[in-house]
């Protein structure tokens, strides 16, 4: 096997996707997808292990040597992100069985799982590849399948929000394509390593600077950085629950990874720091944290509330990138991991509520915390982690973020991070108040605890929030190595 693992990580879901699409109705499509996701998670784990032990893995597709052929190049950074994506997929699929059977019409279920696997292929492909154009192809594979997945939501707004996402996502991807074209015209290569070697000689050219800007804007759209986040709340609110869980925990994370690669691996850091890119990230990040958190407080729909909170959390990651120091990048990577855990847990728990009462309006869930104690427990843990209470994973990422800010004596970002946490207390508080302290709305329905198939993955992620809040060896250790690879020269 050896190096083939890095390739099979992408190929296994790719082959499974068309097969699942032609499987008969019933539970077979789900079972196949579940097995595939487990296989991917195992492969991703093995890959991270071998990268941590033996250094960079390079895989030449078709046996063509880079820079001519496409190369998969895996170091600690992408092995880490690939593991996040694969593990979240493996936890989402057992959860999917019941939730999908309730929300998706039966004849569409095989297609649903096929699209989910294609989305997984795209996301894993982005993390594996070392070719800048290949990133575009995988980006579009994952985006197109996620547009289709979002449009399967039950309300009619699912169509309009999917359309809105499609327009903005395609503009973002096309901007990225323009940028890649401009860079290719000056460097004559598409391989990331090769481009990184050639770029320092052509950095003064306007073409390169324009290309850099186009790529920045394109990826910022994909990762829903604050002023470009408009597609995200609608898409997350109206998508089927499983899709929301999966996309919230993975899609934006992968875009953050692409951003890190462009800023710190492909372009020399002296260039990145000399451009206003890092300052822009800090400003956009701060604005995102404050404004999106305030928006979250005023939402009446729980999924929408958490979606705005996601925009705010992306703001924290943007802050980490903007600091451009080793600690800042570590903070961004740790938060990438931890946010996947907390939002995964929260959206899954909310999904369990939707499964029982078929609504996600804040005024419909009064008092449900007492009827569904286990679901409520998971929401409390996820919420505390979102706020950043010590002992949860969220605290670790905020701790490193504040450390990075203090290193540069950046007092305003420190204040913003603290205010953001206070705002998170407010919106998480609103959720918990409605679930536990408001009197039960009496509409004759008896609500019972969610089925075990939904609770086990939810609690898996909730406990992971606690575990990674106490034992930081894996997250901090890997993030340290990854940040060292990316560099982060700014003191």
């Amino acid at each position, binding site marked *: 096997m050896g190096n083939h693992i890095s390739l099979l990580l992408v190929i296994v879901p790719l082959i499974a996707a068309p097969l699942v699409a032609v499987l008969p109705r019933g539970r077979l499509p789900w079972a196949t997808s579940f097995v595939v996701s487990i296989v991917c998670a195992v492969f991703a784990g093995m890959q991270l292990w071998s990268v941590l032990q033996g250094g960079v893995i390079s895989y030449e597709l078709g046996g063509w040597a880079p820079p001519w052929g496409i190369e998969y190049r895996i170091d600690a950074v992408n092995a880490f992100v690939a593991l996040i994506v694969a593990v979240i997929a493996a936890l989402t699929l057992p959860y999917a069985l019941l939730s999908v059977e309730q929300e998706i019409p039966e004849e569409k279920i095989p297609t649903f799982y096929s699209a989910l696997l294609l989305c997984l292929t795209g996301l894993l492909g982005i993390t594996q590849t070392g070719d800048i154009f290949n990133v575009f192809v995988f980006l*579009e594979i994952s985006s*197109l399948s996620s*547009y289709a997945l979002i449009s399967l939501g039950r309300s009619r707004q699912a*169509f309009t929000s*999917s*359309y809105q996402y499609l*327009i903005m996502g*395609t503009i973002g991807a096309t901007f990225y394509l*323009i940028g890649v074209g401009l860079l290719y015209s000056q460097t004559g290569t598409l391989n990331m390593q090769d481009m990184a070697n050639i770029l320092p000689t052509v950095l003064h050219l306007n073409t390169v600077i324009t290309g850099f800007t186009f790529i920045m804007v394109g990826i910022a759209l994909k990762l829903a950085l604050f002023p470009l986040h408009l597609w995200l709340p609608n898409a997350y609110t109206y998508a089927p629950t499983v899709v929301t869980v999966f996309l919230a925990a993975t899609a934006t994370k992968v875009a953050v990874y692409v951003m890190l690669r462009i800023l710190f691996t492909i372009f020399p850091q002296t260039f990145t720091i000399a451009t206003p890119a890092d300052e822009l990230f800090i400003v956009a990040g701060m604005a995102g944290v404050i404004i999106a958190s305030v928006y979250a407080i005023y939402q009446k729909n729980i999924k929408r509330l958490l979606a705005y909170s996601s925009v705010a959390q992306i703001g924290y990651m943007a802050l980490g990138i903007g600091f451009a120091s080793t600690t800042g990048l570590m903070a961004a990577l740790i938060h990438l991991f931890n946010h996947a855990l907390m939002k995964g847990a929260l959206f899954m728990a909310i999904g369990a509520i939707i499964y029982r009462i078929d609504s996600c309006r804040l005024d419909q869930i009064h008092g449900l915390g007492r009827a569904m104690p286990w679901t409520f427990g998971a929401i409390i843990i996820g919420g505390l982690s979102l706020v950043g209470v010590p002992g949860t994973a969220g605290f670790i990422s905020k701790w490193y973020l504040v450390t990075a800010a203090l290193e540069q004596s950046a007092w305003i970002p420190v204040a913003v991070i603290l205010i953001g946490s206070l705002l998170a207390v407010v919106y998480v508080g609103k959720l918990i108040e409605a679930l536990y302290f408001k009197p039960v709305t009496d509409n004759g329905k008896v609500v019972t605890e969610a089925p075990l198939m939904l609770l086990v993955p939810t609690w898996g992620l909730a406990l992971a929030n606690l575990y990674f809040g106490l034992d930081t060896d894996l997250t901090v250790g890997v993030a340290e190595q990854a940040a060292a690879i990316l560099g982060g020269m700014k003191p």
Partner: protein
Amino acid sequence: MEFIIGHYNYWVVIFLMMVGLYTVISRGNLVKKIIGLNIFQVSVFFLYISMGTVEGGAAPIIAEGVKVYSNPLPHVLILTAIVVGVATTALALALVVRIKETYGTIEEDEIHNLDHSL
């Protein structure tokens, strides 16, 4: 003058790009938005393909007596991008069909009113 004539392909690309992007942003009709998006994407295809041209170069197939070949790589890249574009357009049109069926209109402002008058 040399700057304008010598880079005419880029001027075409920039013109198309702006027309496309403007259409996407300014039109409220969902189908017109897709048309704009298509023009925008096609301008990028032109950018790549005109970039790959080598003056006096032949098609990149080895033949006797030909010394200079055009760069085939941008063509291959754009073949992929065209396929992506077709898939995007098909998906977008499919969504518009469903929107028309559920809302009865494809004007953005009317859809907005329908959603908020509930």
